[in-house]
């Protein structure tokens, strides 16, 4: 059962639950208990499963650890502290592990010294030992590992992957059998993905190995819904939801935030000026703050910002630095160290500094472009103002008009505490395959016993027995003939006995070398004339290129010539217009909740503006023209600056004047249009539901449209809608749309999607990742690393072959599940379709001579980055000019 605790314990009660030395140490160090500590000291002392959500700088780590340290000193003082692990701490980041290790060393040392001082010679007599802590990650040396095996630390700090190795190592696991506490930190970074699912299986397996209940503690910064996270943490006990107490101290920090538009007119101001203004703004903030942290959404964006700040304002390496995943570990550590010491004026990061690595006191956070979710926005802005009493300050600088609408509403939602929700991936078969192999290594299992253990994990509570058995059969190699099973089989399975276990000597080595859920990345090397290396592109982007295509890389344009394996050859582009949009798979999709909020804003705001359409329209649009008072007042309720207000007003007025309608979440505008400059015709679906849903909807509607028109249909998708393109004229009526929707509903969205994605690159890429996670493709075999390129080539064949064996092959089934539920959002897409059928969501078809303002960003491929692509911007201007001419003509 989940219990939400509302009332904190008194400080007296909290502190008296602690060991006297620990209490003394705490009193000497801190003046008071932070909000989360007012709950956790008592709860964890009482061994209650606890989920804590609290912002950075709120003493969260200590809130989880202090009661445990206290208990361990209790043991020590009574001479009962043994050389074994009592507490395991897992975080998703090695850097965070090192931080926690360092930060706990001090209290452990200081408390021990206090005890030594008081007890003197009694120490030896009473066998009072120091409470120890150790880190074990992929970076830990062999020598250290051996030491840990002989003398294990009392508190073990580790990662999900290292934990998985430890619980399958027959020697080391002995040291873990006495574990009493399990802490998962940054739980919001784990609960929503396969890595976390892998971890939660490890926790339950560890509990089974230990043979007793382990107290589970989850720590997270921003998290919603809390009950889901708690269930993820504790799982099931004897078939019933295990108990967990939820501590919500997430709003104990004050926020000061603003959305800023660098200019009032975001369409016609020249690129140079927009760029100048943006950097001027950034520099103002940097100058007036002690330290600033800038988030961009991509790695290339990060590089670009650092380069510009240095060039424009003569900052040196000691003032401004980049921090992202492609940089070496050393240079990232350097940056973190410099930030902590307060030496760096400004750090620029893509996502890597979002998590709780200790970076000291940051005064200000700047976010460039939408971070796409309220939770992420809070997480990032929360990096400023280090103590829980200080104010977190953040500015969002927007990149275009859709970005502006999105950010304005997002900041409003941040203040109103409308968090977006996460979902724990359910029944992931690839992760389970790994664990079944792991389980087979440690002992002989009865099928039902193993199935019951798996079902005690929240993510697998609803797992069908048939799915479990199809995995057992796959892993046993039952899909090949008997004589080949020797090589194909990964576990031993006896059907009569209903038991499985280890197969062969190699099994363990293969398991240890290949476990983990993070897929290998494929970087395609791009070479220019004379074999000059230019940079990397993503594999998925390469598959879209054909000879002669022009694309941007590192701010320059190149023409694609040909590719060979993992290399791609280009020449300098002769034309100045890219023929293919840039590709950012790093780009995050907009959360559904936020999309809904934006939809509501669009409805309210456009409702207010409708009466002004008739009055003196163009004057209203010009920048000198004054905004009606009512409008100004309404926009002033949002956390936006003056430029943003003008831009918002202008954007909505243009759309209303041009198309008479503003699409909302209850009104889907379907715009049939074309562009004189290209030969293509467009149907723009203004469906404001986020990319995960639009991805699903666009594919099936394209299939329907292709059938009706007997033409190939192209698709462009972004968060605000999607565009179907065709070389032929497209005519659709309300009837057509209704028929299309009813057809899709009859066949079933999931069925249609499966058929449609079968031959896509997305399917191939995901299949490779799932096949690698399921050990169907080994990344590392007999000591050889198999290059991703090889894995990729093989994956295509594998997919083909597996399908021929059995269309419900577990590896294929999982690939579809992941695409439909994680890349896309099938349940919500289905809800939208039924909304269209029932009329809860209305739709309206409009025909325009040229695309309406709200479709412009969609038609320019919707992928805004900090690198403004100049050509793109020009294209947008020409679209806009057409619109303004039309409005003027009326």
């Amino acid at each position, binding site marked *: 059962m989940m219990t939400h605790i509302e009332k904190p314990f008194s400080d007296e009660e909290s502190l008296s639950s602690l060991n006297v030395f620990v209490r003394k140490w705490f009193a000497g160090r801190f003046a008071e208990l932070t909000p989360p500590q007012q709950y956790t000291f008592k709860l964890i002392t009482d061994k209650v499963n606890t989920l804590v959500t609290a912002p950075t700088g709120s003493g969260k780590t200590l809130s989880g650890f202090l009661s445990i340290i206290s208990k361990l000193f209790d043991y020590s003082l009574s001479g009962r502290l043994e050389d074994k692990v009592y507490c395991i701490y897992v975080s998703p980041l090695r850097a965070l592990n090192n931080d926690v290790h360092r930060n706990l060393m001090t209290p452990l040392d200081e408390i021990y010294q206090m005890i030594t001082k008081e007890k003197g010679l009694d120490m030896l007599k009473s066998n009072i030992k120091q409470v120890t802590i150790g880190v074990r990650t992929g970076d830990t040396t062999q020598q250290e590992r051996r030491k840990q095996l002989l003398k294990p630390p009392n508190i073990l700090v580790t990662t999900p992957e290292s934990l998985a190795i430890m619980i399958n190592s027959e020697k080391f696991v002995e040291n873990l059998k006495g574990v009493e506490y399990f802490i998962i930190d940054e739980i919001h970074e784990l609960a929503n993905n396969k890595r976390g699912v892998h971890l939660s299986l490890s926790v339950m397996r560890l509990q089974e190995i230990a043979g007793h209940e382990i107290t589970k503690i989850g720590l997270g910064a921003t998290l919603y819904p809390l009950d889901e996270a708690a269930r993820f943490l504790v799982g099931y006990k004897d078939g019933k939801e295990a108990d967990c107490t939820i501590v919500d101290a997430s709003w104990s920090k004050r926020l000061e935030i603003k959305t800023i538009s660098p200019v009032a007119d975001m369409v016609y101001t020249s690129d140079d000026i927009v760029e100048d203004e943006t950097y001027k703004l950034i520099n103002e903030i940097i100058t007036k703050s002690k330290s600033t942290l800038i988030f961009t959404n991509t790695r290339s964006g990060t590089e670009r910002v650092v380069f510009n700040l240095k060039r424009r304002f003569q900052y040196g390496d000691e003032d401004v630095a980049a921090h992202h995943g492609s940089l070496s570990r050393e240079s990232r550590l350097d940056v973190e160290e410099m930030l902590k010491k307060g030496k760096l004026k400004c750090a620029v990061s893509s996502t890597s500094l979002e998590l709780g690595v200790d970076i000291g006191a940051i005064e200000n956070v700047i976010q460039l472009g939408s971070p796409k979710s309220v939770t992420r926005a809070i997480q990032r802005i929360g990096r400023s103002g280090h103590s829980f009493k200080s104010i977190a300050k953040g500015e969002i600088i927007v990149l275009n008009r859709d970005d502006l609408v999105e950010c304005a509403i997002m900041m409003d939602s941040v203040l109103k505490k409308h968090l977006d929700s996460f979902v724990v991936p359910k029944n992931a078969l690839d992760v389970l395959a790994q664990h079944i192999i792991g389980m087979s290594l440690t002992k002989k299992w009865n099928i039902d016993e193993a199935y019951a253990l798996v079902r005690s994990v929240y993510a697998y509570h609803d797992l069908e027995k048939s799915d479990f058995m199809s995995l057992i059969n796959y892993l046993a190699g039952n899909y*090949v003939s008997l004589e*080949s099973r020797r*090589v194909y089989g990964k576990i031993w399975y006896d059907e009569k006995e209903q038991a499985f276990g280890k197969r062969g000597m190699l099994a363990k080595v293969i398991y240890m070398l290949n476990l983990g859920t993070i897929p290998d990345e494929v970087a395609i090397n791009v070479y220019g004339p004379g074999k000059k290396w230019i940079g990397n592109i993503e594999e998925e982007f390469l598959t879209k290129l054909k000879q002669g295509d022009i694309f941007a890389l590192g701010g320059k344009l190149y023409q694609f010539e040909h590719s060979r394996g993992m290399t791609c050859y280009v020449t300098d582009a002769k034309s100045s217009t890219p023929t293919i949009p840039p590709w950012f798979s790093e780009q995050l999709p907009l959360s559904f909740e936020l999309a809904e909020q934006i939809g509501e804003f669009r409805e309210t705001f456009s409702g207010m503006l409708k009466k002004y359409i008739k009055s003196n329209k163009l004057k209203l649009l010009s920048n000198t023209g004054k905004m009606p008072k009512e409008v100004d007042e309404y926009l002033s309720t949002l956390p936006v600056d003056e430029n943003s207000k003008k831009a918002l007003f202008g954007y909505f007025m243009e759309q209303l004047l041009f198309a008479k309608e503003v699409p909302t979440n209850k009104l889907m505008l379907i715009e049939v249009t074309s562009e004189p400059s290209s030969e293509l015709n467009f149907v723009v679906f203004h469906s404001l539901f986020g990319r995960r849903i639009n991805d699903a909807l666009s594919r099936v509607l394209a299939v329907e449209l292709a059938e009706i028109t007997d033409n190939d249909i192209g698709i462009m998708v972004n968060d605000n809608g999607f565009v179907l393109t065709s070389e032929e004229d497209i005519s659709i009526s309300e009837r057509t749309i209704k028929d299309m929707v009813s057809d899709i509903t009859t066949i079933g969205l999931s069925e249609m999607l499966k058929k449609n994605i079968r031959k896509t690159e997305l399917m191939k890429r995901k299949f490779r990742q799932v096949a690698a996670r399921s050990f169907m493709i080994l990344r590392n*075999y007999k000591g050889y690393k*198999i290059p991703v390129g090889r894995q990729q080539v093989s994956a295509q064949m*594998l997919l083909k*072959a597996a399908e021929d064996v059995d269309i419900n092959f577990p590896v294929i089934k999982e690939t579809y599940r992941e695409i439909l539920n994680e890349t896309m959002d099938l349940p919500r897409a289905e809800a939208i379709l039924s909304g269209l059928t029932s009329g809860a969501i209305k739709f309206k078809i409009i025909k325009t001579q040229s695309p309406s303002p709200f479709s412009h960003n969609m038609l320019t491929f919707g992928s805004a980055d900090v690198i403004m692509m100049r050509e793109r911007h020009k294209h947008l201007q020409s679209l806009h000019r057409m619109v303004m001419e039309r409005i003027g003509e009326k």
Partner: protein
Amino acid sequence: MMLTNDVELLEGMRIAFIKSLNSIVASDFHLGYEGAMTKSGVFVPKVNLSKIIESLSAAISTTGANRLIIVGDLKHDFSDIETDEFNELHDLMAFLKQKKVAPVLIKGNHDNFVERYSEPFKLLVCGKEADIGNYLFFHGDELPEIPSNRPTMLVMGQEHPAISITNRVGKREKLRCFLYGEYKKLPLLVLPAMGYFSTGTDVNTRNKQQLLSPIFKRTNIDRMHAIAVGYGSTIDFGEVSKLRGL
């Protein structure tokens, strides 16, 4: 479709039929592929052989052929004959025997050590090339020696030809194909690969230098016709040169 009066490309199959020889001709089976992959850590389920048998069976029953000429690369692994290869070789030969079809293999670069099975399997193994009824068969990894009697047609494999087509909205598709043209003024037919996993080299996007067979350094692949096979039919797509940049 009929290529000449005597040579037919069986509709929708990667197999040619030569009437005067009462023989079907196919290439690049790559038996044992899955076993080789599995040994390198990629666990490919076995489907290659069963698909090949399915296809041969259909070809035999429509044509009534009593001979199968394999233009090289019957097996996959270069080094030796692996257990998997042996098993599959055995099953294929048993199938042919039952259908009363005599197998002839022109050795390809993958077919090392295959001679040791020619006796038990009644598999006729020819060295680098064979002139059968005035048709010259060779694998293609080396240039053929043209006999003085000027053969009616040259038939080879090795290249695994395919074409890739991208439509205007950006979808790309690869189709396996026959290539038909001339070498030293003699008709030249290149067969697509039978192997289930050999999806092919797209000859219309690839540089000529990247092609495998030395024969394409002596003859212009751009002038050859690509005859695509797929979806149950066989269609001439015209000269390769016209398919470039599509």
